């Protein structure tokens, strides 16, 4: 048995202090981002509206905390700009990415109980900013065409896409319970061995049988669907939706990479490897994927704060500053908490390995 040093429980005051640090930092970041939006408007560089689209269908997964942007600089708006506005447009975007990334990095550093220095080494911040640029740029390039493909999917198809897994899961649970119920009845009649002595592998067999039955049922149901209807299904659109899902899953597996860059000093590649492996081994993939998805939705939802105020500038300020303070803090905090859990899991695993 490994001997762990008992973790010192944090007081409510400490927790409140941590949240206050995150909120203060992301309020500053939100203010800087709002300044960037004002600068874009001063320069007459077009920003695309992001609040008129559905936050779930147009979710943009992120691998680092981001600011809430009710408006966004689309690459199409850059073509044809004079050199000075072009440089300013790119500079403002780069500046905003740097600001939010540095903000998150400082928040993770200042709330790390194992550090005493007031600022992290410059190399770590550099790695973090580099990591942010690469991942943000990749998602920035990938997401719009995937989402464009996704718009080809009709609401009915989307319902089908979401509904089939839900129905299949419910059916699977139902069939599994049904098989177990039949087993229970047979045990009570004394025609079989005790259910409670059934080994885990036999439970797994039951689950597999149930799964096979569900797949067969769904295949029959889809097969009975008229062929012309199936021909109308937008497979390109479904591919787009699945592409977005894939990006969300990847972002989920890389969830704690930025934190380990700052707190452990890992390089970006090593951080990606560590995050991918650690989250997979600790069984937290589902949790982090769901967090990435809902943070993406929350960011888009927070952009709607701009409609609260009748004055457009006040609305923009509200969404950007308050939204970033809320969503950015939440995102960075969740990354830190998941990192803590992953780190603890990794530590305990390594301790067990050492004992063996």
């Amino acid at each position, binding site marked *: 048995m490994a001997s762990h040093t008992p973790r010192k429980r944090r007081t409510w005051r400490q927790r409140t202090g941590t949240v206050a640090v995150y909120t203060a930092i992301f309020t500053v970041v939100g203010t800087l981002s709002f*300044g960037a939006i004002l600068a874009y408007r001063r*320069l007459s560089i077009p920003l695309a*509206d992001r609040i*008129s689209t559905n936050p779930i269908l147009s979710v943009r997964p992120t691998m680092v905390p981001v600011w809430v942007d009710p*408006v966004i600089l689309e690459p199409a708006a850059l073509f044809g*700009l*004079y050199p000075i506005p072009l440089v300013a447009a790119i500079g403002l975007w780069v500046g905003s990415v740097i600001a939010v990334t540095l903000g998150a990095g400082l928040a993770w550093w200042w709330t790390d109980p194992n550090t005493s220095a*007031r600022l992290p080494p410059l190399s770590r911040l550099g790695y973090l900013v580099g990591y942010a640029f690469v991942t943000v740029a990749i998602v920035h390039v990938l997401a719009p065409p995937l989402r464009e493909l996704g718009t080809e999917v009709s609401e009915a198809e989307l319902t089908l896409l979401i509904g089939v897994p839900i129905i299949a899961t419910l059916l699977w649970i139902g069939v599994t319970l049904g098989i177990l119920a039949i087993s229970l009845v047979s045990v009570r009649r004394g025609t079989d061995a005790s259910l409670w002595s059934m080994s885990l592998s036999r439970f797994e067999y039951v689950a597999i049988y149930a799964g096979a039955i569900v797949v067969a049922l769904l295949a029959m149901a889809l097969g009975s669907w008229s062929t012309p209807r199936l021909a109308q299904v937008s497979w390109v659109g479904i591919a787009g939706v699945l592409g977005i899902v894939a990006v969300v899953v990847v972002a989920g597996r890389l969830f704690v990479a930025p934190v380990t860059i700052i707190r452990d000093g890992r390089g970006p590649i090593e951080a990606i490897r560590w995050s991918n492996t650690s989250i997979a081994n600790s069984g937290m993939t589902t949790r982090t994927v769901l967090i990435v998805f809902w943070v993406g939705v929350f960011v888009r939802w927070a952009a709607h704060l*701009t409609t609260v105020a009748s004055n457009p500038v006040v609305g*923009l300020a509200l969404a950007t500053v308050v939204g970033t303070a809320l969503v950015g803090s939440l995102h960075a905090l969740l990354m830190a908490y998941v990192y803590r859990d992953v780190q603890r899991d990794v530590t305990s695993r390594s301790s067990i390995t050492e004992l063996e």
Partner: protein
Amino acid sequence: MDAPGGTWSRRSVLGGVTSALALGSGCLDLELSPARQSSDWPQRGYDAGATFYKPDGSPPTQDAEIAWKAPVSNSLYTVIDKKWQTDYERRRYGDLTNAANGGSIWEYARTPLIVVGDHAYLSGGWGTVVDLSDGTIVETDVCPHRTPVGVAQTGTYTDGTLIGAAPRYPSDNRNDDVSLRGFQPPTDGRAWCDRPQRWTAGAPRDFGHTAAAGRIEDGTVVTVIPDSEPPYRVVAIDADDGRIEWENTVSHGIYRLRVEDGLAYASIADEEGGTITILDGSSVHQRVEIGPTDHLEAVRDGVAYFRDRETEAAAPSITAVSAESGDSRQLLDGSAVSGRIAGRPTGVGDIVVGPDRLFAAVDTETGHDPVVLALDRSDGAIEWARQFPGTLRLTGTDDALYVAGPREPGPHAYALDPASGDPLWVATLPDRVDSGIHRPIIADSKVLVPYGELLVALEEP
């Protein structure tokens, strides 16, 4: 604070980022571009006042021959370029504020023909791009989800912005969220269907939709927000980024919109009477009652010009309203023309407003030819009158008044001396058409005449 690479503090980090943002937001006042070319015809009516008068270019004045003819779709001209519309048609296709008619407005409020650089862009049943040098069809494309309104000069883009109307999603067939949008202008003669979008009018306030029409002046697009009831919003959109430069409201529907020197002229004319409101972002300058059949045609030098047709109560007339004083005066009294022409005037058609003269096509009672009039803009004195057979469509320059009309035995084009009305040349156009001859436009050295399913270019031999 010690750190690898130097000594820096929390304050210096934040200060640096702030400085970078502040540096990027410096004031930039760039000239509007691209520079206008003598071939450009950037929107319907040439300018935001729709004067149909173009001082630039060198179209034929001594003689003319057909340079080329190109097969195109002019089908939408038959709706929007009609001289007379019934009340139903006007309400259905012309009411920019009627939210319920969004789809119809979207379909018919198109600008059928604009010229940018070396190419003419036509929208109709299908969109066509024609090379002005030889009439070659560069591209023909069905472009149902996007329609051009005009081309605007911009301060931040080197190539200007193509203003068009489009629904939010190309696949949206309901057309209930059509808005003016800014697109990257066509290059190399390619159609606008595949050009990237730069902005949506009014983002991020999200109008829902705007009218699918607007008037473009000095990098600003003035348009109207349709709604279920008044007051209706008139908004000026920056052609650079689509943001609102200014907005104001009018208390009546808007059938016609013209713009000059930053002032918007919004008018309605229906059976309940007519009104024109002249406004900008800061105030309503004038609100003037006009006749129920007075249609706003053009604005020049702060004066709005209306035409009407014969009613039981009055002869057709041209009315001028001053934006400065709000005074309304009759520039042309149809009954006064009767003595100078054969036949009784029944309605005023096309109007061309030049710096000194106003030219008008006046219909006459059955059995008599319509007439072209030249009026002194200051006092309405008739300088000359000349009758031609058929329906007459007008466009003017400093050196000539161009007239297109279907005369027996087929369509013809004329150039008249603007001072005397004497013919400078007459050209017979190919392919007889029963109807649908439209207003000529000027493109550098050519006069383009759209009619039937053709675009014909005339130039000096």
